[in-house]
C-alpha cells in the first residue's frame, strides 16, 4: 500500500438532494510528496473534488481521509485544514488584509501561533514565493501573478503538508502564469510538498507525476502525462485538447508518419520528428539536445 496523504472512498457529492451527483463514485489516493494534476472541462466536477480534500465540502456518500482522519469529523477539521492548504482561482477574493504581510499572517494567527513565530513563518513563506520585497505593499496594487503568489504564501505560512490549487492560473496572463508555476515548482524542490493542481491548461500538466482526467463526476483517465496525453481522440471527446506538441505528432501520424505520441516537450517533439525525417533522408542530423 502506498503512503497516501489524501484518500477518497466511493466519494459521491450532490449540492442538494434533487440535483445529480457532481461527484459520482471517486476512489482516489494521492501519494505523499507527489505532484498530481487534475484536468477536466468546465463542470466536470474537478473543483468540487478539490473542495472535498480539506472538508470545505463534505461527501454526500463515501468518505475522504486526510492522513487517516475523516474530513467529516468536526474534531479533526482544523487538523485537516492545516494539513491540506488550498489556493483558489481569483486572487482578489482570497486576500483578507490590506497589507501583504498581514495577509500572510492570517492563518498562523488563526491557529494561535506565538507572535515571534508568526513573523518567522511569514518572512519565510514570502521568500519562498519571491514576494518578500513586497511585504509592505497593498495587495490591490499588485499584478495578478503577484497576488496569487501572496495567496500561496498565505497558505504556506500554515505549514501544510499538501497544497491543493484550484485553477490558480485561470485568470492570469502568460507572465503571471509562469510566475505561479515557477513558485509551484520551487515548492516541490527540497521539501517534497504534495501538490494537487487543478487546471484546464494542458501545458501545465506536463511536469506532473500523475495526471487525472475528470468527466461527469468520474475519473475518466488516470496515468502519467506521457500515458494520458497520447490518447488524443479520448481527450477531444471529453472537451479537452492534447498539448500542441502531441497534436502535431498526431496529425503527422494521420498523414503517414509513425511517430511516438509521448514526446510532450517542444524539444522531445522536435527530436522525434528530426529523427524520423533524418532516417528517411539518410543524413546525420544533430539530434537530441535535451535540456
Amino acid at each position, binding site marked *: 500500500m502506498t503512503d497516501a496523504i489524501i484518500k477518497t472512498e466511493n466519494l459521491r457529492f450532490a449540492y442538494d438532494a434533487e440535483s445529480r451527483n457532481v461527484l459520482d463514485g471517486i476512489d482516489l489516493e494521492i501519494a505523499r510528496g507527489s505532484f498530481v494534476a487534475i484536468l477536466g472541462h468546465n463542470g466536470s466536477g474537478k473543483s468540487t473534488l478539490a473542495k472535498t480534500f480539506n472538508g470545505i465540502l463534505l461527501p454526500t456518500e463515501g468518505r475522504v481521509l486526510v492522513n487517516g482522519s475523516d474530513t467529516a469529523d468536526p474534531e479533526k477539521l482544523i487538523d485537516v485544514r492545516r494539513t491540506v492548504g488550498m489556493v483558489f482561482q481569483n486572487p482578489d477574493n482570497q486576500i483578507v488584509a490590506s497589507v501583504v504581510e498581514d495577509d500572510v499572517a492570517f492563518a498562523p494567527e488563526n491557529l494561535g501561533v506565538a507572535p515571534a513565530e508568526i513573523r518567522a513563518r511569514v518572512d519565510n513563506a514570502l521568500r519562498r514565493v519571491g514576494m518578500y520585497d513586497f511585504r509592505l505593499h497593498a495587495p490591490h496594487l499588485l499584478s495578478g501573478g503577484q497576488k496569487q503568489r501572496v495567496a500561496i504564501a498565505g497558505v504556506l505560512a500554515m505549514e501544510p503538508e499538501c497544497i491543493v490549487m484550484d485553477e490558480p492560473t485561470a485568470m492570469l496572463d502568460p507572465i*503571471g502564469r509562469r510566475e505561479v508555476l515557477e513558485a509551484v515548482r520551487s515548492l516541490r524542490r527540497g521539501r517534497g510538498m504534495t501538490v494537487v493542481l487543478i487546471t484546464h491548461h*494542458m501545458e501545465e500538466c506536463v511536469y506532473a507525476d500523475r495526471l487525472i482526467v475528470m468527466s461527469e463526476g468520474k475519473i475518466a483517465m488516470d496515468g502519467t502525462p506521457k500515458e494520458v496525453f497520447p490518447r488524443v481522440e479520448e481527450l477531444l471527446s471529453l472537451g479537452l485538447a492534447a498539448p500542441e506538441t502531441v497534436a*502535431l505528432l498526431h*496529425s*503527422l501520424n494521420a498523414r503517414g508518419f509513425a511517430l511516438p505520441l509521448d514526446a510532450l516537450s517542444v*524539444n522531445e*517533439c*522536435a527530436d522525434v520528428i*528530426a529523427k524520423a525525417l533524418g532516417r528517411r533522408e539518410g543524413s546525420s*542530423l544533430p539530434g537530441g539536445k535535451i535540456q
Partner: protein
Amino acid sequence: MPILRAEHLTYIYSQGTPFQKTAVNDISLEIEAGELLGVIGHTGSGKSTFIQHLNGLLKPSAGTVYFEGRDIHADKALLRQLRFQVGLVFQYPEYQLFEETVFADIAFGPRNMGLDEAEVRERVSEAAAFVGLDGKIFDTSPLEHSGGQKRRIALAGVIAMRPRLLILDEPTAGLDPAGRESILGNILDYRDRSGAAVLLVSHSMDDVARLADRLVVLNRGRLALSGTPAEVFDHAAELREMGLTVPAATEIALALKERGVALPESVYTTKYLAKLLCALREGEGPC
C-alpha cells in the same frame, strides 16, 4: 476607406501629478471592414487603455480616432451613436449581466438605440442565434446559467447592436478548450456574415496565430510590431523579450531548425507545420 483609423493616439494618466503615466504612446493603426485584427501585449502594455479609446470611453490626451472618416470626439451626440457601431466586449462580461431575463439583457443595447420592439425582438433572436443560444431560455434569469453560457449571453448583448467593429478583450479567458473553440467560432461567424471588422485582444498566441489576418503587438504603450502573423512571429526573440510567447508551432519549428530541418521562417500554426513536414518527408522540399 478603413472603417476605423487611429492617428498618433496618446493617453496620459493623472497628467500633471506625480503619478503621471503614459499608458498609450503615439499609436497609429487602421482597421478595414471584414478583417480580424489581433492585438497582443502583456498586462500593462496599454492594450486595455488603447481599446477604450476606440469607442470613445476614453478621450486621448493627443491624437485622433476616426470612425468611417469622422473624428469621434467632434460631436457629443455622435459619440453615443458610435458606441452602438463599435461594440466592446470587456473581460469576463458574464459578471456584468443585470436584467431579470436573458431576453431583456440582450435587448439592453438595442433598446438604448431607440429601436421599436419588433426590431429589438428580431435583433435579439439574431444575436442569440449567432452565439448558439436557444430561444427557450429567453425568459429565464441570466444569473442561473453556467459561466460559459453567461458569457454567450453577454456577447449576444453586444452583437445585438450589430456593431460594424466588434472589439473583444480576452473573450476566451477561463474557458476550457471546447468552450474556447465554440466562442471563437461564434465570433468568426459574425464577422463572415455581417462583414464587420473584429479586433481580438488575446493572450493566446495559438489562437491569434490561427485566426488573425493581421497582428499588432503593444509593449509599454507603444506599437512594437505589426504585420501578418507570419511577419510578427518571425520576431520570436523580440517577442520573448517583451514577456510574450510565440505559438507552440513556431517554437517546435525553431527547435526543428536547430536540429537541421530546413523550414521557412514563418511557421505559426500546427496545421501548416504538419503540411510542411509531410512535404519534406516526400522529398519535395529542400532538406
